[in-house]
């Protein structure tokens, strides 16, 4: 085999591999991937509150604006609210668990992209990174306790010295 043949063979192999790869990519039906190829949890609902490109570029501006409106004026519409982002985007992965932002190799919607862009993500040091439905029962506030007391399911004053879980 002369040098020319070797080069031809290598080129053919490369083309073959590349075409396999692109076919595989076009037929890939697994989890969503972002522009950098990170796996992103499939969101609930049909579409986001703004076009995807707009959200990629400007989500922080929308959140900042909404944050001040909510904090100072008590405007709690769902549009651009962080809680609603989380309700749609923090969905269970293949293992049935919702990935958390600060866990290692997080597959959380926000952290995959932020990790690859090397942008620090501060929101979730205070805010919940998953919907309230996924909290365990002991972490969810008790519903109207007065009605429970009226029904007799809890007695007044039994809460004394009880430690909060």
């Amino acid at each position, binding site marked *: 085999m002369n040098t020319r043949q070797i080069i031809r063979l290598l080129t053919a192999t490369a083309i073959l591999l590349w075409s396999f790869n692109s076919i595989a990519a076009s037929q890939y039906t697994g989890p969503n991937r972002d522009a950098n190829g990170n796996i992103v949890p499939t969101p609930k609902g049909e579409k986001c509150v703004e076009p995807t490109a707009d959200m990629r570029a400007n989500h922080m501006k929308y959140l900042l604006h909404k*944050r001040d*409106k909510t*904090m*100072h*004026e*008590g*405007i*709690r*519409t*769902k549009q651009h609210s962080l*809680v609603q982002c*989380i309700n749609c985007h923090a969905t269970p992965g293949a293992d049935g668990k919702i990935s958390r932002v600060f866990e290692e190799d997080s597959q959380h919607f926000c952290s995959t992209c932020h990790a690859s862009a090397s942008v620090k993500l501060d929101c979730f*040091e*205070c*805010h*919940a990174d998953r*919907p*309230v439905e996924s*909290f365990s029962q002991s*972490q*969810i*506030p*008790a519903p*109207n*306790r*007065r009605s429970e*007391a009226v029904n007799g399911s809890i007695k*007044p*004053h039994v*809460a*004394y*010295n*009880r*430690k*909060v*879980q």
Partner: protein
Amino acid sequence: MDHNDMKETNKIDQYRRKFLGGSAVAAAGLALAPGVFLHTVQAKPDDEAVSNKNRWGLLIDTTKCAEGCSDCVTACNNEHGLREIHGPATDSQWIRHVTLKNKQTGHQIDMPMMCQHCEKPPCVDVCPTGASFKRTDGIVLVDKHICIGCRYCMMACPYKARNLVHEVLTDQLPTAPRGKGTVESCTLCVHKVDRGDGTTACAEACTAGVILFGDLNDKNSEISQRLAKEGGQQLRAELGLNTGVRYQGL
């Protein structure tokens, strides 16, 4: 200004008062649609900003508050996801059950203490970043996004109502974001108020009916009616802070 002038001014003021009072009643009458009562708690539309039409507050009847009960404290902790970390010395306490005993007479008062939601809050005056603020509806809050954790407000508060979060927190509730290095205190269950629940977690939990939540600006609300009939004291009234939380039986 001589004596006659004073008299004249007073007359004008009286006239003004009468006129304004009369027109206010007329306006209230006009605003009432058939079947709509002013004293019902109406949920504010989500897209409407809060306004100074409301002033939210609490009325606390200390005579009904039982020794050893901590239902309100537990309810508050559950509602806002406050969990025990290193014990009462450093853990956040948004409500404390306070027992006062007169050693001479043996008379004892039990009462819940929380942020008093002052009209003129000292915590807001001293805050260097503007994080400590009062909403137009009278609820005093900390904007934790801009709080730097300097704790000036904790020093300024005459009621020791505020806490600094010392530890890294996890699993905060979506309705109560909290984080290390920021100051926090009773929010008067602002998320419930905005939702139109018309009550707070502590008021809901108190089976003895010690705590009453309501609108101090609405003359027809239960809290205003009771304050008008039975009266209610401010804690440290001499400071002139006009607190939103009032106490009975002190």
